[in-house]
């Protein structure tokens, strides 16, 4: 209970600071929503009137306080660009990004565990070395370059996928899911490589532990040792690592959205920054930060569940 309270406290402090910082940042960017909305042909008076209407003339702290008060009541305001409630706007962009991120997380889990354990029987052996090189390549490749390569091979050479052919989930769920596979691979591969390496190192380190010697002394086979003894011990740091990775995956999704033309949170964020649509930016910033903090909290709780020593 105390732990949860502490976490909620951290979350709130984090969100307040980060939202204030982004608010502050906005006051330094040249151009505001009024200028962006009215465009070239508006005169200064009209811009001023809209500024007044949007409350952009008030001091930053007042604006922030106002925003904070309504945000605390769950109201994130209205997009100055789209004239739609921010929550609705964000909710609509969320599925693509979240699905992409989840997809990637699943890929990371599914791929990196078996690969991470491959070759750990003989560290430094041929299989292990091959895995090392493979994971180094995976870690080194920029996500967007991978996206471009995937586009080229699967979209252009093999013609398996319609590259850039995003369909919304409402329109065609199956199409949506199958389209997201390639972007998910682009997001996941570098993280998979990191994870594989991490798991490999953890397994190798665990295998040097005394309890593994005990297990071997009991007559366990190497496979049994790996699955029944080492894996659960490796899980604990890996879960923490996975949670930390969630933030990166989210960020990666946002970059890869640009490569595959997916109208997700990332595009909304970048568009909103250029349109000076700060209610939307604020909401996204808060959303991402809380996701990261919540993921870390979940990891901590999982860690506690997994490790009897910290219970």
């Amino acid at each position: 209970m105390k732990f949860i309270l502490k976490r909620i406290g951290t979350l709130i402090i984090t969100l307040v600071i980060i939202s204030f910082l982004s608010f502050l940042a906005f006051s330094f960017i040249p151009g505001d929503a009024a200028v962006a909305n009215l465009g070239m042909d508006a005169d200064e008076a009209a811009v001023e009137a809209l500024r007044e209407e949007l409350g952009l003339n008030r001091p930053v702290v007042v604006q922030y306080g106002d925003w904070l008060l309504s945000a605390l009541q769950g109201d994130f305001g209205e997009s100055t660009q789209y004239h739609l409630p921010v929550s609705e706007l964000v909710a609509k962009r969320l599925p693509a990004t979240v699905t992409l991120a989840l997809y990637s997380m699943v890929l990371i889990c599914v791929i990196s565990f078996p690969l991470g354990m491959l070759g750990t029987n003989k560290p430094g052996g041929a299989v292990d070395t091959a895995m090392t090189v493979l994971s180094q390549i995976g870690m080194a490749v920029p996500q967007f370059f991978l996206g471009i390569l995937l586009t080229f091979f699967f979209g252009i050479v093999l013609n398996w996928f319609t590259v850039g052919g995003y369909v919304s989930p409402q329109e065609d769920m199956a199409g949506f899911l199958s389209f997201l596979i390639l972007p998910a691979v682009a997001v996941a591969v570098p993280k998979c490589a990191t994870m594989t390496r991490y798991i490999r190192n953890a397994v190798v380190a665990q295998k040097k532990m005394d309890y593994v010697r005990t297990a071997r002394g009991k007559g366990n086979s190497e496979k049994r040792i790996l699955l029944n003894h080492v894996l659960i011990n490796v899980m604990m740091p890996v879960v923490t690592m996975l949670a930390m990775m969630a933030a990166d995956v989210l960020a990666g999704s946002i970059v890869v959205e640009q490569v595959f033309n997916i109208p997700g949170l990332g595009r909304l964020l970048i568009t909103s920054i250029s349109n000076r649509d700060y209610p939307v930016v604020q909401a996204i910033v808060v959303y991402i930060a809380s996701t990261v903090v919540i993921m870390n909290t979940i990891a901590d709780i999982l860690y506690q569940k997994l490790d009897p020593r910290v219970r």
Partner: protein
Amino acid sequence: MKRKLFLALLMFSVMTALCACNGGTDKGDTPGDISSGTPAAGGEIVVGITQDLDSLDPHIAVAAGTDEVLFNIFEGLVKPDKDGNFVEAVAEKYVISEDAMTYTFTLRENVKFHNGDTVTVDDVVYSLKRCAGLLDVQDPNVLVDSALSRSIKEVVATDDRTVVLYLNAANTELLPYLSCAIIPCDYDNQAKSPVGTGPFKFVSYSPLESFVVEKNADYYGTPAYLDKVTFKIYASSDAAFLELMAGKIHIFPYLTDEQATQLSQKYTIEVGTMNLVQALFLNNGAAPFNNVKVRQAFCHAVNRQEILDMLSGGRGTLINSGMTPGLASYYNNSIAGYEYNAEKAKQLLAEAGYANGLEITITVPSNYQYHMDTAQVIVEQLKKVGVTAKIEPVEWATWLSDVYKGREYQATVVGLDFNLAPSDVVKRYQSTASNNFMNYVNESYDTTFAKALAAINEQEKQDAYKELQKLLYEDAASVYIQDPALLTAVSKELGGYTFYPVYVQDMSLVYYVK
């Protein structure tokens, strides 16, 4: 009397149309509309666009990319046709008084909004007042057109079919502004679920994703052929291109030259013009461009044909001053333009005291890749005359606030769009104009412009506008480059795609070929 003027205007319109046609065909490319094959009714298409809609409320929307889509839903009292004429739309007819002080509109009978209501004079008065900023309670989000707000004294419904506009000063050029959308006066959900009178009805909008319209069966005019049109929003033409290659898009404007070449197997490539004055705009108010010699030197240093060759395969129309040939009767085609001459440029720079070179910064809105590319080519060309130019890419909002409103820049590359009123494109060069971001000051320009605007006599008006262009040319106000070519990919199954002299995608004329 009124009737006479009306006829005169009609004649003028026809003339304009003819010239526009000439303008469109002079490159020897495919002309504006290519209707081939027999139209078949029905069908759905996907149209790719690269700019998200900034609002669904036609009076709030300011982006050209929004107007071109909303054109299918909304109509004004009048609307432009493909030749640049203003034809009656919601209005059945209009009369402009001889002194050009009153405009009288008679509404068409039984024009229905998409929600089923009939268009009344109240709707028209409301719509016009809203555009002109004359409502008692004015939504500050509405972009009030200064041309309307300054000209219109009052909008009155004289009976249930007639609306009269009383002006502050004589103005024969108000018609293009009166194409502003007619919307229901008692409907306040325009931004989410727009209601207009156009040939298509709104179905759905998903920001950053798509905008969908369907055929308006109750349309008073010629109904659309297509049942449904989905405008799909892409982050860039590169992103759309991949789907074009896969054949998922039926129509896509704004192709690059390379893309057009690659798509020529699968699509018909239609070539039109963007109706933009693209230029390297110079800040005449600050060094070094407050020196006319420097400005002239730049005009000589920029090889405009090379820009066209580099960026659009030689397509596009070179312009020599601040107007495009699209406004044919007002376009001064007697200006020879500054020829590319690096030696002369260097000499002029030396005369201006920059013999040892010059460093400048070109501020470019980075969301417009075409302008960015243009700037890149210009930078290379300027190198040859000893000018070191640096590109500073900025976001559109920053550009608006720093360059356009704040006028804190040296040079910038953008394209200015305009409606079909000749004043719209050149009024910004008045020394007092709030949007004179070039800081261009020339007394005789101001007087000539006032003359042009007030002129009722068409010839007088044309002469005045031509004179204005000459002044801009002589003063080398900016380095005018071109009206860029608009390359549009149209599926080979389709016909009826039509270019307009303004920024619109008219889907009502598009059909599947039988």
